[in-house]
């Protein structure tokens, strides 16, 4: 009986440790651009579009735009993937990714629709 308990507790401990480690690795804190520069891991920054003029690069494979964060700081966001619907009209945009080479490389964009009633916009993932 005791041996069995030890095995059970061992399995539970492994699950908890595994859970904690992968949770820690996949946490993306909510920061400003100034903080994002100092963090090497994945973060998310919320802001508004500086101008509606979008710059498409790489022949439509990536979207590039300037985002103004809550501290009034600007940064260039590069998102590899197709442009999310309603990006220009967004009330605010959350970019999730990393700061690299003076630009913010987004893995995922959350586009907040200006109307609170447009509840479902669907997030856009980069596969």
């Amino acid at each position, binding site marked *: 009986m005791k041996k069995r308990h030890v095995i059970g507790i061992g399995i539970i401990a492994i699950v908890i440790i595994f859970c904690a480690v992968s949770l820690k690795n996949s946490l993306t804190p*909510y920061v400003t651009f100034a903080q994002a520069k100092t963090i090497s891991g994945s973060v998310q920054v919320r802001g508004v579009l500086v101008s509606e003029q979008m710059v498409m690069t790489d022949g439509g494979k990536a979207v590039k735009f300037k985002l103004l964060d809550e501290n009034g700081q600007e940064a260039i966001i590069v998102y590899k993937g197709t442009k999310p619907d309603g990006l220009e009209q967004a009330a605010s945009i959350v970019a999730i990714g990393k700061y690299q080479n003076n630009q913010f490389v987004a893995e995922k964009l959350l586009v907040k629709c200006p109307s609170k009633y447009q509840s479902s916009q669907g997030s856009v993932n980069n*596969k």
Partner: protein
Amino acid sequence: MIGYSSLFLSLLVTCIAAFSYFNLHLVSTRRRLGKERKSNLGLQCYRSSAILAGLAAGYLLYIILDNRFDYAYVFSYSSRELAWPYKISAFWAGQQGSFMLWLVFHVIYGLLLSRKNDAPAGVMVIYSVLQAMLLIVLLVKGPFMLLDQQQSDGVGLSPLLQDFLMIIHPPIIFLGYAGLAVVFAYALEGLFSNKHKTWTTAALPWALFSWCALGAGVFIGGFWAYKVLGWGGYWSWDPVENSSFVPWLVAGALVHSLFWARLKPTALKGTYLASIFSFVTVLYGTFLTRSGVLSDFSTHSFADEGIGRLLAGLVLVTLFCGLVMLIIRWPNLPEGQLYSSINSREFVLGCSVLVLTVMSIVVFIGMSTPLITLLMGNPSNVSGSFYNNMSLPLATALVMLLTVIPMFNNHTNKAAKIKQYWWLAVIGLLSLALPFKLGLYRLMIVGTIIFSVTALIMNITIARRNKSLSLPAVIAHAGLAILVIGILVSSAASQSVMLTLDAQQSKNVFETKFTYLGTKQTSDGSGFYQEFMIEGEGIESSVIRPYTKYNKNGKPSTREPGIYRGWLADLYVVPVIEQDDHVVQGIVLHTGENILQNGVNLKFIGMQTLGGNGNSEMRMQALFEATKDGKTENFKPELVYKNNNFIRIPVIVLGQYEVSINGVNPMKGMINIDFIDQAIATNTDRVQVEISHKPFISLVWLGGILITLGSGWAAANRFILYRQVLPSRRSQHLTSRIQ
């Protein structure tokens, strides 16, 4: 006022019902059966509250169908041109309406429970209290708020939601939500009355049914995301998805623990926990997605409408009441073994409960991370990799259990000698071919696929022969094995490429020839199709047509991917929306002002009103002058106001430019126009398109269908069985009281 007052009255009557049921409950537990004065007050009050709630719901439906845009809810989710099925779905498109739908299902279930006093009075007490909670939420934030000014038309339903699947998805989810309230009520009644065995038979069909409905809702939601959203997947671990996925997992644990408790009553402790948590997680998910706490973390979540605190309070109250009752009764709960030996059905059953519980805890932690970290002062979110990394080993454990369970013989409750299943190893080795053919070499994935295949074979061949599982259970288990194979293969072996194609040009990818045929506007002008011909070996030559829908302003807004559905793989085609600088909207001009647009000079000369007095129709006519390359042309677009509707009459000038009026302000002499350069608009002979090859994705849907079918069938069986034993049970109940 009809809406609010019936909700308010319903709340009052529900409270009375709860009190009189409580009275009845006290009478029956004190065994003062000498005076069998059966009070019907509770039943009558409950029925009246149901009628009143139905009245409120009926009124909501009426104001939607009657285009009463003076109601904020109708204005926000419906519009005149919306087709009637979508108008009905506007009922539950928004937060307030979806609570109303939840209430409707809750009341229907309540009527079923109260019929012939099927459920004990104690159940009805708790069930009425839960109903009162829903009514309070609806009274605080109901769909009957009036707007300050009259509106001629509504905002309309988001085009993404205008899909058949989105009509049926929310009702199915709420069927499950409401059903878990029944289980919760039964469990609490069991604790109250200290009768820990009788309630499980009554609660089992409800648990199975809710589990089935939640699963169906989750699968439909995933299928809709795949079919409509066009990002290529069906699941993104979004809080809204998780908020029904977690209750589904807990309900799965609940169902299995109910079966476990039949074999070993000690497991009842777990059953109680699962019953409490399945309903609390429903409320918690509602709180997370409706309170606005996640508004920074998801595009999906509803904005805060001021009921966050109320919902949080309800979550805490239900959790507190449930757990306190459980703690009080803990010493009275059956004691004993959880399983007789490792080689027993209940051990495997217990393991499955454990795995499902751990899985729900993992997803729960993930979806709560924004809230927890927010409270700790450093708001963070988790990425999808957390969920994926965590669920893979848990899925492996689940399919291993699925392989083992059919080995148990129903009579001996023992698995036969493992040597008898030597051929399983052969199947396992043979199934290695699948991952290697697809180029999957990650040990965990390969292992999980092997176990899924063996689990599938075991369920098909042995499970019925050993009578270890009922047929519905076999179907659901086989469905899970298929689902796991589908998820792993389709996500791990999916590939995609980006192509640029001119009209009639062909390119070969994924051993398939893609030809771009061109763009076609839909007949009603609501959007356009981009047609691709696909030909290849093993593929039926066909045309797939990704569809892009225009928004209200005539700009491409949402797009649906084109999907070729094959048995072995899907081809998923998503065109990239081009920058549409040929359409310029909302140009505002004052009288006499010029604007240079796409090489043409537009001058707004003036406007006049035609008709009006006495007529229901009023026409605003504007006078413009267009000049290009020395050519000048005058044109007169019109805006007609008729039957409370604005109708645009666009004009095409210089054979190329379409101008229509958005709105006018005659007092200030201002006009707002839209401009379309048709020469560019029609020049769509080149397209950029992302093509993905998704092997075995059809197995995801097949697995989902089988799980739903299995759990639904099991629910139906248990309802019938319960109905059959009910009369004898009731008399038994009575005799036990008299004794």
